[in-house]
């Protein structure tokens, strides 16, 4: 619920109810414990009521709220109800089940208590609320595929060029009796070597970029959320992908060379 806060310097008087203020709001206003604020609900149009800041809290890092990133205040339920035009109404209940109780059965029973009531398990609720992030994840996957495609072509191009540059050397090797298989393996090994070095450099660069990205967004949104994560699984996956692409690029470049007769490899 969005509330407007009208600040007023109120001298000590009758006891007034307390509220908690989010740390970002406390810094932005600024507010401290013991300050008095006047609050009204935009939905009600009623006169503002005074509240004492009883504490400052840090909002849990919740990606669902990051786009709007509104400030938050917390009231006792009865105090909030007094500010709103509606009474005896809640948005939702959180229910803790007794040990051994089955969530599904409890949810079905709750749904029969009142027409239109919906009960969700915490997992089900998380799935529903994370729909946005599932879409973002699919988008990132799609961009990832395009990036892999571009990297693969780039790697292939580099390998073809490197091998083309040394066609004369390859021709000489073949003419002095080095087998096609040996030339092929040497090129593939070289490609794998390049891929290993590239993957290692990429992992380091990725970690540095992730730190920069996280620092930037932490500052922008004033949040502890981490936007970029480089986990061991991601590093291993990227390295394996790099190795596979390197090996494929090397194999393709090597295949082009070993198909040509050695005496023709020296031709321009």
């Amino acid at each position: 619920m969005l509330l407007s806060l009208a600040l007023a310097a109120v001298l000590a008087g009758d006891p007034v109810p307390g509220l908690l203020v989010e740390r970002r709001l406390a810094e932005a206003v600024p507010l401290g414990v013991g300050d008095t604020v006047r609050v009204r609900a935009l939905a009600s149009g009623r006169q503002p009521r005074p509240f004492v800041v009883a504490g400052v809290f840090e909002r849990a890092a919740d990606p669902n709220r990051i786009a709007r990133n509104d400030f938050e205040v917390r009231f006792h339920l009865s105090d909030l109800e007094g500010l709103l035009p509606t009474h005896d109404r809640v948005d939702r209940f959180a229910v803790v089940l007794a040990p051994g109780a089955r969530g599904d059965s409890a949810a079905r029973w709750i749904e029969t208590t009142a027409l239109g009531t919906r009960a969700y398990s915490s997992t089900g609720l998380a799935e529903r609320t994370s729909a946005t992030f599932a879409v973002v994840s699919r988008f990132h996957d799609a961009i990832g595929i395009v990036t892999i495609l571009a990297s693969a072509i780039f790697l292939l191009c580099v390998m073809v060029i490197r091998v083309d540059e040394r066609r004369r050397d390859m021709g000489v090797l073949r003419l002095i009796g080095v087998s096609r298989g040996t030339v092929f393996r040497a090129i593939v090994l070289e490609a794998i070597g390049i891929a290993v070095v590239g993957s290692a450099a990429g992992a380091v660069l990725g970690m540095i970029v992730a730190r920069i990205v996280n620092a930037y967004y932490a500052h922008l949104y004033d949040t502890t959320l981490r936007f970029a994560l480089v986990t061991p699984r991601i590093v291993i996956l990227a390295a394996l992908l790099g190795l596979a692409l390197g090996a494929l690029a090397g194999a393709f470049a090597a295949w082009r060379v070993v198909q040509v007769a050695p005496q023709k490899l020296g031709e321009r």
Partner: protein
Amino acid sequence: MIVAASLRALGRRRGRTALALAGIAVSAALLLDMTMLASGLTRSFGDLLGVSGYALRVTPKGILPFDSEAGIPGGDAVGERIARVPGVKSVAPVLGAQFRVVRGDSAGPPLFTMGIRPGAQFLYRLVEGSEPGPGEVVVSEPMSRLDGIRVGSTLQLAGGAGVSLGRRDARTVRVSGVGDFLYDYAEQRSLAMPIGQVQRATGRPGEVSLFGVAAADGVDGDDLARRIAAAVPEVSTLSTRELMREMDRRLLYFRQLATILGSIAMVVTALLISTIVTIGVRERFGEIATLRAIGVARGRILLAVVTEGLVLAAAGCVAGLPLGLWMARRLDRILLSFPGIPARMTFFAWEAERVALAMGLVIAIGGLAGCIPGLAAVRSPLSQALREEAE
């Protein structure tokens, strides 16, 4: 002639050139998509806001349209004051609420329901039937199609919290029409009915969630928003530009992602072109040295090398354009599955100037990437170059 010879060198190494072109095409496609993404949704949102002619929104103070349950009390009086502001052509009040269709003992999921003034509304276009009168509703096209609801059908509707608390205060309404709801996401079930009906059913007499305001011909939206704000200071008046700015703020992540990925695409393009041209120049070091030895100006040689980069980049752009548009359609389909995004919007808007800028950037990068090996070739000592070639 020298330029032509340089370009022929690209043709001699077809496989390598084809690979480089493929790489540049993918990079150009990515850059194009990121350019389209950077402004696509905001622009598309702006177009959608103005599509019905109601380009301004008047909302409760400090609230964006439908961002909270807050309402404007005394909606009729506020609406009349807005209508009196010079330059206002029409005012359309809207009250948002949630209703459920009740069937027997069960109630369906909440349906987004809009209370509107049938003669002046901007939320849907009728595709069948007529505007709703008292006791009537217009249903969205997906609701009609998916639930088999036709004009003349009747529905049991329950609004407010009563149905959740077990009070079966459902009332029967007749479907007067089927509408194409402009701001609905794909397959959304929505309802619209006269605003008074929604106000009574939800216990919010006289309340309005927002007003849509249409400006008279030739009146600037921003100027009119300022005049309304001065005349009715207890509400927020938002012009299309302000709403787009807010949309931009919320989609900051996508704009920044587009900038980062676009920059990476440019770096990859630069690397690819400079690698290809550098190798090409090194292979023709002897030819270039000979040309210099017989008196060909350095500028002409540099021009030939730069042209090679430009041609590679331009050809990559030509291949990258259709690839980019195809990718944009695929990515758009993914992003439009975001909850609550109107189906009419697009994340990737075609803007000729921006597309031209992206492609121009790729070509400029091609030219710059050609400059580096070109300068190296024309600046190397001639005697050394000739000796190296002889060896």
